[in-house]
């Protein structure tokens, strides 16, 4: 029976069913990974059952309506049985009915009372379970109409099971009709919608796409052969061979490109061209760009980032925002003992564009990162690694960290103003220029790795003023509307200072003389904020101080940026954690120093001044950062594997094809056709070696030419040992081909086997000989060129 079925099912059908199973696996895996509940293990088997049932139905039933009704009915019944856990109860009911039925018949015949307690009991269990499930279902339906969301995992599973059942049945039905697009399209769309939302197992979609293309090719061939057979059109066996080759290579090539192509947004493309254009073409042509402010960057309204803290009592609020642990100091048993905990700023957002009325940021294309993915492709020298454990009371939608963020253990979306040029390797300078505007995440607890600079006053004073172009472009801009007196003030403050650090420090000192005050009037709409603070208001809070310092620093030629976040907070020695409250919301300034990076400055009078060691010996050497190093190595390895995997897949596919599929295809062909195909391939490979095609060249003549050339190549080659068997193989293959054409007896399968076996080795030998010959020609061409150059008379 099985053999009869197998004989009736063609190889294309079997291959199609295998691919449909692969598509089902990808579908169930992709969707299950995106669902919250883990009870999805049986999805694949349920889907396979549905697909096989529908496949069988499609071969028997012509009416689609009837098939759909049957599959829907079976699906609903099956899902109900599974959800109500009725399998064992129904089994019991069936068993009881089976056991009792002979007795019942006897008793009924003799008019005796019938004992059906076992059946009634089993039926009662089924009824009760079904009733409970129906109640639960009704509640869930009612809740859908109300405002309350009911998270009923069972209902969710039921819905998904039914959806998967129907999708698989659809797939199976159209698989029976050999319509790949109709079969896979609904599943593909659902999977795309789900994975684009969840972000999990995107590879499942890739598998589905590749399977779709393969199925299209296979069924296209099968449909054609069916049509040819129906119309009694004679067709060549070699079509199967050519079509299979083309379909496999086309599908894998498209699949490989889809696999390796990263997601690039149009904004990234625009930024890329803008950056390139700014630096090269625009400079060459003398085209100047409008000032950033005038250009608008109208992504957000300019403001002082901490304005909102002034209202609603935030500035005095002791409400805890987050707790940060760095693990640098152990918890103290006697909390009264004062500890000198390091001071950190918990940054969230940086601004680069000052527009007079406040701050905006230039465009910052976003990029999503998986958890524990390095954001910068290298370890920073002269920086201290910091392991942060952050617990946010209420998630703010963004991460907080200190220094330069290296990685986080939650998926994040980083908006880069300046991104490292490579995602695998970068030098220190490139890493230091990288500028992340914000790292967004909905997590309320996370671990992060970051780097904080270990700099001395000596380092800062010795730093050069040779700023990279990207830094100049972003962090030295000031609006044209900036009053001249601000520039003059900057000059006055820094006139006696030589180094960049001293200039920054002078500005910081100058601003710290302004009194801190939260009760300040709003700046007039037509007045520059920095000018208003420096000359009119002469008091204010952190935003004003930081704004004024950035403006004065830029006016003095120092690249600076405005940073917003939280100040260090209060250190709880007993728990070795920083408790950050709303009142610690803060803005500060960072100035860029070549070879060092961004260094924090504190111009706000209410905050303590930042202390830095004078010289190198005072800086404690940072221990090697094992975590970051491990993460980075793993990331590099994964990326390498990711990029190499298409090549590996292609290589494997080729190996599979040449070692297994191709011989199998040859053996399924008519022997004469198979030998002719093999010989044609051999001819194509050997032709470049044998030289130009002579008029009316016979197979024997070609063979002799080729053998002569192979012998010559073998003599001069280091692969002589490998090539020595080639002439014999060439002769053998040619003889088989000639036999297939001219011999009295028809060629047999065993000859094809011999030809395949010869060709398997001969192909590699011919390739080796061709490579050797090509290298030899290049080498001799090089010598000839050098010889000619040598002969030319010197001037």
């Amino acid at each position, binding site marked *: 029976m099985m053999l009869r079925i197998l004989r009736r099912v063609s190889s294309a059908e079997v291959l199609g069913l295998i691919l449909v199973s692969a598509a089902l696996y990808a579908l169930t895996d992709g969707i299950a990974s995106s669902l919250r509940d883990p009870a999805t293990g049986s999805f694949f088997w349920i889907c396979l059952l549905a697909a096989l049932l529908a496949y069988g139905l499609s071969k028997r039933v012509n009416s689609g309506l009837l098939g759909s009704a049957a599959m829907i009915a079976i699906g609903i019944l099956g899902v109900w049985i599974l959800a109500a856990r009725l399998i064992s109860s129904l089994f019991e009911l069936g068993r009881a009915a089976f056991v009792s039925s002979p007795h019942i018949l006897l008793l009924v015949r003799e008019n005796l009372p019938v004992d059906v307690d076992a059946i009634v009991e089993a039926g009662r269990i089924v009824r009760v379970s079904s009733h409970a499930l129906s109640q639960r279902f009704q509640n869930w339906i009612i809740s859908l109409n109300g405002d309350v969301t009911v998270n009923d995992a069972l209902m969710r599973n039921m819905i998904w099971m039914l959806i998967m059942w129907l999708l698989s049945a659809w797939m199976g039905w159209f698989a029976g009709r050999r319509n790949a697009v109709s079969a896979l399209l609904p599943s593909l769309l659902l999977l795309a919608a789900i994975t684009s939302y969840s972000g999990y197992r995107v590879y499942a979609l890739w598998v589905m*796409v590749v399977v779709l293309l393969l199925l299209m090719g296979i069924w296209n061939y099968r449909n*054609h052969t069916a049509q040819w057979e129906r119309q009694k*059109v004679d067709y060549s066996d070699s079509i199967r061979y050519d079509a299979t080759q083309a379909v496999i290579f086309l*599908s894998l090539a498209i699949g490989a490109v889809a696999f390796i192509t*990263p*997601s690039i947004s149009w904004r990234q493309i625009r930024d890329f061209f803008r950056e390139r254009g700014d630096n090269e073409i625009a400079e060459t042509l003398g085209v100047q760009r409008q000032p950033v402010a005038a250009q608008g960057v109208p992504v957000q309204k300019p403001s002082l980032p901490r304005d909102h803290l002034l209202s609603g009592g935030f500035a005095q609020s002791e409400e805890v925002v987050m707790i940060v642990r760095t693990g640098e100091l152990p918890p103290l048993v006697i909390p009264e003992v004062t500890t000198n905990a390091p001071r950190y700023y918990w940054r969230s957002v940086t601004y680069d564009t000052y527009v007079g009325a406040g701050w905006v940021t230039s465009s910052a294309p976003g990029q999503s990162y998986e958890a524990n993915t390095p954001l910068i492709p290298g370890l920073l020298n002269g920086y201290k690694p910091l392991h942060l454990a952050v617990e946010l009371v209420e998630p703010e939608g963004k991460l907080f960290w200190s220094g330069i963020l290296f990685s986080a253990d939650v998926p994040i979306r980083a908006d880069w103003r300046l991104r490292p040029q490579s995602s695998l390797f970068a030098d220190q300078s490139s890493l230091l220029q990288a500028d992340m505007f914000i790292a967004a995440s909905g997590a309320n607890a996370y671990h992060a790795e970051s780097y904080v600079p270990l700099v001395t006053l000596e380092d800062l004073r010795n730093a050069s003023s040779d700023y990279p172009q990207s830094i100049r472009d972003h962090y030295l801009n000031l609006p044209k509307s900036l009053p001249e007196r601000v520039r003059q003030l900057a000059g006055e403050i820094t006139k006696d200072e030589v180094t960049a650090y001293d200039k920054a420090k002078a500005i910081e000192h100058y601003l710290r003389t302004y009194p801190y005050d939260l009760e300040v009037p709003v700046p007039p709409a037509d007045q520059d904020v920095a000018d208003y603070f420096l000359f009119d208001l002469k008091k204010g809070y952190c935003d004003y101080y930081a704004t004024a310092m950035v403006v004065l620093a830029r006016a003095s030629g120092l690249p600076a940026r405005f940073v917003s976040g939280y100040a260090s907070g209060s250190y709880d020695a007993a728990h070795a954690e920083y408790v950050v409250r709303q009142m610690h919301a803060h803005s500060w300034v960072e100035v860029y120093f070549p070879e060092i990076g961004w260094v924090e400055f504190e111009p706000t009078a209410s905050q303590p001044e930042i202390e830095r060691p004078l010289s190198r010996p005072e800086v404690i050497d940072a221990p090697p950062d094992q975590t970051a190093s491990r993460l980075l190595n793993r990331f590099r390895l994964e990326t390498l594997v990711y990029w190499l995997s298409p090549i590996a897949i292609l290589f494997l596919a080729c190996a599979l094809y040449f070692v297994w599929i191709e011989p199998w295809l040859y053996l399924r062909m008519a022997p004469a056709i198979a030998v002719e195909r093999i010989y044609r391939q051999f001819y194509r490979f050997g032709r470049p070696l044998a030289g130009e095609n002579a008029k009316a060249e016979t197979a024997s003549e070609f063979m002799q030419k080729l053998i002569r050339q192979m012998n010559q190549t073998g003599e001069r080659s280091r692969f002589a040992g490998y090539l020595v068997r080639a002439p014999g193989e060439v002769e053998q293959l040619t003889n088989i081909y000639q036999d297939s054409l001219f011999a009295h007896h028809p060629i047999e399968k065993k000859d094809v086997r011999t030809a395949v076996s010869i060709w398997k080795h001969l192909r590699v030998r011919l390739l080796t000989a061709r490579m050797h010959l090509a290298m030899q020609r290049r080498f001799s061409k090089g010598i000839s060129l050098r010889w000619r150059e040598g002969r030319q008379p010197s001037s």
Partner: protein
Amino acid sequence: MQPLIRLNAKVFPVLGALALLMQIMDPSRVWVILMIGIGGAWLVCWWWARGLARSLTFEREVRFGWAQVGDRLEERYTLTNQFMLPATWVTLHDHSTLPNHHASMATGVDGLSTSQWKISTRCTRRGVYTLGGTTFETGDPLGMYTVLFEDPTSSTLAVMPPVLPLPKFEILASGLTGEGIPRRQALQQTINTSHLREMQPNDPMRLIHWKTTARRASAQPGSGSGNPFFVRQFEGTPAGDWWILLDLDQRAQVGTGWDSTEEHAVILAASLAAQGLNEDHPVGLSINGHSPDWIPPRRNEYQLRSLLKALAVASPFEMSLQDYLQRAGRSFSSHCSLIIITANAEADWTRTLMPLMWRGVMPTVFMFDPMTFGGSANTKAVSEILQSLNVPCHVIPKELLDTPQARPGHEGEWEWRISATGKAIAVRAAQEEWRGLK
């Protein structure tokens, strides 16, 4: 030949565009995979199909413009692909009307290469047929596009009835001199006797070659041979006209297909025509059929082909032989031999022979024996009447023409020729140049 490119998977460009839109609006790997996997596949397939549409050419050639039943017709097909990618499948649908001509086939052709094959068909049924046109379709390997080519080029092929060697039949000769009526420009007499033959009814007495007659009589005394006289034949002496009247009265036909009196009548007419022309008779043809044909007697080299062509399309019609003879009888020239080929066993038509005979038309009747073809009519009565009129009547049984020679077919076969030195050389018979369908 304007190719038509048809998109089968219309959803692919839509999905590709949708994925592109989504990638612009909400960049994600999901959309990239869909965009390249679906949109990319669509673009590649479109390029592939377009390349094939522009680069695939097809030629169909045939060697012969006409054939006889039993001949092998050879057609050569050339499919050229000038595109760099292969056409993994190409289906050719042949619209020829020639019976048993199975030229439709599916094949493939590599990139930048040519595929050529031949189709050989044995012509089994007379008639005029069309070879071509051709529809061929191809497409990309995924079946996303189908490229359809319509090639309306066709040519007409006449399949003539076979010509068989016939036994010697008595056919009444007519005419004033020699074997036929002298033509104006022809020599009346010649001193060059070409050969001798047995005397036929109506041969002039003066042409009897007495010496031969006497020698034969003495050589075979009492042989009982019915015709002891031999007459002289002269070079250049025009032979008498033969009119072949093929009666295809539908009501008189018996049998079906190859075994019908209709087919046998056509073959007999063709064979007699060939025989007559071989014997230098101007042969004409008159067909009582669906499309009445009237070919006056001629003796040039094209006459046989004209007669066979007319016989190729001859088909039965509902007009009795009697009516036909009454209407067409007076169009036969006087003093000619009229060869009537019929399956009509009714005697009524014999009456119409008398007026013809008075005009010097000498009829000879070939009548098929309906009983050998599965019919019930008896030819005895008609034979007797004809005998009484001194009209030779040959009753043709089915077996006479139902021979293997009725399917001679030798075109495209190997033949052996013996050279002057006695060496056997294999040659192909009747090699003609290939020519395209026009």
